[in-house]
């Protein structure tokens, strides 16, 4: 975030120094508008009811008038919908089309999802496959159990690193220096329960070392239990993360941890499926 801001600030400075500043400045304005519009779409979370203009402005840190212009544009293009004539806003049909185009473009829908669905059925758990992106995990496919309450994890969910099973599995794949960098960031931002964060992460790393998966019990959301494991392809590819979980009143830590070895086997099956499909090239 701060890096992006710095980048755009230096671009403005370069434009001001150049001989023909007009078009360069205009182009930079256009980039900024586009980036802000995309930030509005990122501001929505699954647990949200529709957001008002004011809430959108607050979450994105945009001035009210700028937010209003961008909301109007996104509304016209079908990326936002309005709930009722004077109601709030939520993502619109174009967002669905865009998401569909991504899941179809990636091999996970074809290769991983059927295996995840079988696992969800057998163990009655939610299953999520995630990819690390910019210090967060984005869920790229999810499978729902036959009977369990919704724990709000689905394709497109964005998860923090410090206190989710998928996030911890990702941290385990990183070289020590980069892991330490993330830990410092968590401490600065207060992510992951402050003083309890380091011991919890140390325990998760140790658990991944000896049994291949880690726990995240009642920490991301107070009432959700999760376990996670990495799918390490090779250095050229993003690490993928696989996890399963449930509400803490439908399963016990012990029962969920018993799924651990099966989850590690599922990760191997998905990895082999992806390698065999040959579609990992350029993923």
């Amino acid at each position, binding site marked *: 975030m701060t890096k*992006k801001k710095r*980048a755009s600030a230096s671009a403005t400075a370069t434009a001001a120094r150049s001989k023909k500043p007009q078009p360069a400045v205009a182009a930079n*304005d*256009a*980039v900024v*508008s*586009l*980036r802000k*519009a*995309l930030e509005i*779409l*990122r501001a*929505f*979370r*699954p647990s*949200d009811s529709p957001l008002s203009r004011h809430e959108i402005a607050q979450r994105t840190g945009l001035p009210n008038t700028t937010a*209003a*212009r*961008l*909301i*109007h*544009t*996104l509304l*016209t*293009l*079908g*990326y936002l*919908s*309005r*709930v*009722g*004539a004077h109601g709030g806003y*939520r*993502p*619109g*049909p*174009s*967002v*669905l*089309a*865009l*998401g*569909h*185009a*991504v*899941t*179809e*473009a990636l091999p996970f829908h074809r290769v991983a999802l059927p295996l995840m669905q079988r696992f969800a059925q057998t163990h009655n758990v939610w299953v999520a496959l995630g*990819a690390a*992106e*910019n210090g*967060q995990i*984005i*869920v*790229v496919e999810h499978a729902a159990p036959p009977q369990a309450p919704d724990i709000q994890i*689905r*394709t*497109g969910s*964005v998860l923090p690193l410090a206190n989710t099973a998928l996030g911890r599995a990702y941290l385990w794949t990183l070289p020590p220096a980069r892991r330490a960098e993330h830990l410092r960031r968590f401490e600065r931002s207060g992510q992951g329960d402050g003083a309890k964060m380091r011991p919890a992460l140390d325990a998760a790393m140790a658990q991944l070392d000896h049994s291949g998966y880690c726990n995240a019990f009642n920490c991301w959301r107070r009432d959700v239990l999760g376990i996670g494991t990495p799918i390490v392809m090779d250095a050229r590819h993003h690490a993928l993360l696989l996890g399963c979980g449930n509400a803490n009143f439908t399963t016990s830590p012990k029962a969920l941890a018993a799924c651990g070895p099966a989850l590690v086997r599922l990760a191997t099956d998905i990895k082999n499926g992806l390698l065999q499909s040959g579609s990992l090239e*350029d993923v």
Partner: protein
Amino acid sequence: LDAPDRQSAATDGKDRSIVAAVSRGLSILSAFSERDIWLGNSEIAARTRLPKPTVSRLTRTLSQLGYLHHSPRRRQYRLSVAVLALGYGVLGNLDIRKIARPAMQAFADSCNALVALGARERLDMIHLETCHSNSTMVTLRVDAGSRGRVATTAFGRALLAALPEEERKAVFEQMSQQYRNQWPKLKREIDQAIRDVRQHGFCIVMGLWQPDINAVAVPLVLRNRSEILSIGCAGSARYLPRRLIEKEIGPRLVELAQRVAAELSVLT
């Protein structure tokens, strides 16, 4: 939105440039589809009708922001997983999909067909929700999020019938430019579909979308016309012959739409 009315001419200019910047950037993202997974700058330029230098600048920006992935080997781009964070995870919670789903699924099972809920995005229909019949092996491969055309599908035409006059005129104008010499014939068919919706509540499209596939659709107008969607039912001509659609399936689909609309208005 009330804000733009009170703005000066200077900000109107600024508004136009913001609208242009955002819509260009988003049109680049929406150029990608399940058929066009990898696209190069010239292909994107051809699909979006934007000048190539504009496209190159925007694809570079979008990959810096993490929304496009560039393959140096292919010299092409594809959408990256970050696009999924643009509100996609929220849509699974849409009330309308949750509420409509059980009734749509029962309908799909009872007539061996696909039932889809659609919304319009310019000249495309986007499938918000699709329910496949559990009782047949063969079903149309259409998933939520995929696109169809407003002009040639039953659920596109049913939706046109419910649009306010002015909005429909604007859509027709865009269609005449898009379809050129096919437009007069399409316009006649669409006008007939609109008359059918007014008279019977539904319209039928036989074998146009795919041969041997018949479809029927009804508009779904929500909460004081705040949202106009449509529900369509499509399937093999064997299970959906015209007589059956006219006598039974069409009227039942009208009831289904009324029920879904009523349940939704109770909620708000």
